[in-house]
């Protein structure tokens, strides 16, 4: 890494930290939620939580796509994986998410044909490689991933491929934030908004946070300095009681987002009610393929019979973790029955899951603190 940049970074970080101390009232406790899993990891990696004044707490939110994928979706994926004529194409993380009867790793070990891919576009190669099989791509993710998958569906359409289908469970960030705030017991004093999602949607979809909830919010990058700058912005909004959508990631996030990606999403998808693990169904919080694109919708083209979906692993507190109601280490399973090597809940599965990050980097797990 470029050493001059790191030296400069240290200086800027020191001045931002000074500003945070100036703005923070030591009498009060404020809780800012980092919505995105990449932020959770970045905060740990930079050691930011320990640098902040005692009264500023960072809580992890619902922004890891693997974590919020619900049990019913995984049960559908497991049901497809059990079919002889199906090849499941998926990102690797999905294999470990628990469904009612097991996970996709177990299906794979039992002979299901599951291909781990790194780009959705790889489904085109799979379609040609397995012309007699039905290729089903597990399309999860927030706004960031949705546009990429939409482009894949268009490419499949353009090539006239008839054996590629998509099991879609796309989630939208703004409705999730609204749901968190509509819980009267929420303890959130501000949001660090996700950088990558905001590249696509821009600033406007978050405006309701300021207008309706008088809630400070700020779009942040993933560098330690960018995160500290966003915390300064949240404290300034709080101190001055003027609320708006801050943006300390302007070099990457345009005010209106990426209109090409937005149009692409709008062409293929329409809003739908969607299930969030541990939270339940939230109105208009997801996207489904529009009727004219249903030729690629796995659930329409390859209907599944009825089956019962359980509520999720017993004792797992992922729902409370995702909503920022508890820190991961408050879950009785954390670090004991549930570890990244043997995850019980979805938040322990992805490297960007709150529980996984708390486990890997967490100062609170088993006295993992550094003494100066």
């Amino acid at each position, binding site marked *: 890494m470029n050493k001059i940049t790191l030296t400069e970074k240290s200086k800027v970080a020191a001045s931002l930290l000074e500003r945070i101390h100036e703005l923070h009232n030591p009498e009060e406790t404020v809780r800012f939620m980092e919505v995105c899993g*990449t932020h959770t990891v970045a905060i740990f990696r930079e050691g*930011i939580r320990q640098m902040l004044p005692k009264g500023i707490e960072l809580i992890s939110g619902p922004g890891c796509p693997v974590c919020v994928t619900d049990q019913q979706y995984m049960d559908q994926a497991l049901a497809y994986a059990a079919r002889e004529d199906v090849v499941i194409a998926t990102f690797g993380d999905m294999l470990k998410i628990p469904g009612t009867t097991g996970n996709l790793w177990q299906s794979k070990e039992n002979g299901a044909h599951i291909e781990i891919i790194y780009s959705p576009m790889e489904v085109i190669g799979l379609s040609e490689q397995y012309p007699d099989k039905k290729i089903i791509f597990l399309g999860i*993710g927030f706004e960031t991933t949705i546009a990429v998958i939409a482009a894949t569906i268009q490419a499949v359409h353009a090539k006239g491929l008839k054996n590629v289908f998509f099991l879609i469970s796309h989630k939208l960030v703004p409705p999730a934030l609204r749901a968190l705030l509509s819980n009267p017991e929420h303890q959130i004093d501000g949001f660090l908004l996700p950088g990558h999602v905001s590249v696509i949607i821009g600033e406007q979809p978050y405006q309701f946070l300021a207008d309706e909830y008088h809630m400070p919010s700020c779009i942040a990058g993933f560098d330690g*300095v960018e995160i*500290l700058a966003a915390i300064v912005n949240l404290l300034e909004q709080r101190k001055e009681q003027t609320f708006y959508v801050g943006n300390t990631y302007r070099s990457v996030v345009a005010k209106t987002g990426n209109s090409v990606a937005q149009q692409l999403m709008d062409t293929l998808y329409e809003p739908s009610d969607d299930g969030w693990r541990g939270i339940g169904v939230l109105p208009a919080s997801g996207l489904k393929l529009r009727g004219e694109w249903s030729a690629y919708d796995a659930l329409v083209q390859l209907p599944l019979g009825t089956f019962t979906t359980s509520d999720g692993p017993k004792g797992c507190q992922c729902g409370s973790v995702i909503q920022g109601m508890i820190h991961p280490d408050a879950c009785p399973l954390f670090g004991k029955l549930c570890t990244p090597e043997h995850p019980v809940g979805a938040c322990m599965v992805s490297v960007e899951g709150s529980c996984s990050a708390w486990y890997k980097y967490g100062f609170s797990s088993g006295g993992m603190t550094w003494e100066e």
Partner: protein
Amino acid sequence: MERIRLVHGNGGKFSHELVDQYIVKYFSNPILNELHDGAVFPVTTGRMAMSTDSYVVTPHIFPGGNIGKLAVCGTVNDLAMMGAVPQYLSCGLILEEGLPISTLETVLQTMSDMAQLSGVSIVTGDTKVVEKGSVDGIYINTAGVGIVPDYVQLGTSYIESGMKVIISGTLGDHAIAVMGTRYGLDLPDTIQTDCAPLHKMAHKLLETFGKDIAFFRDPTRGGLATTLQEIANSAQKGIRLQESAIPIREEVQAVCQVLGYDPLYLANEGKMIAIVRADVADEVVQVMRTFTEGRDAVIIGDVVNGNAGKVGLQTAVGGIRLLDMLGEDQVPRIC
């Protein structure tokens, strides 16, 4: 003969042909040429070190090296990190039916070159051929022995608070070179494996600084973070690293950011960690820098009081990140 056949492993005429025409051709030396089931060689008094390792990397050939280079350098380096002067190696080959002879020859030629560079002789070996699909092309096992000079005193029990932690060069080059080939990424030519024998540098350091050097280790699988975590655990000391001091090539850093890898956890094949007394640390770095394989050597941290068994990374923004051991293999990000 263009490809390896099952008969090349049956112990009969074809096996002899393979050994005579190819293996002896590249590895020839008086001890090996006896072609017995083992090797007899002279020994001196004192301590010997022994190490063994198996090599299963895929792809077999990658920027800057191949599986044969790893097989010799890996075992040579394991011996060097014990403070030994490597002398003799064995070589076990497990070949897949259908392996092109040209690939085998490339690997054997590299092993021969690396053995010469490392001053070791390959004195005994074994070759098996298995059905297509049973292994991935070629697997190699090497074992090695070497003499440990009397002045060498290395071990985690000699690590004390206040000592300095030195790394001999940039991290992650090997893993990214291999991953790049595996996934067909179009990477700049500067990303190559760092695989190299380290015994000359290791020995120069031990000769010069003797017992002021407490510990050597090469951060291979699991990378710098996992290796230091093991050392901190075993020594029951804390280790504090300075993020800004850790050398990582910009292009490696860039690939890591795209793929979601952490360079601190990526394997290296030609780097060593040295833990040394603070008063000789700068001189140790200077000596390392006189070697090609140590030209980017630098002090990256120190052994601290308290925090037993922990490795803390002081980040550029001023926080401390605790480094855990590598858990599951790193997988690319999905959002």
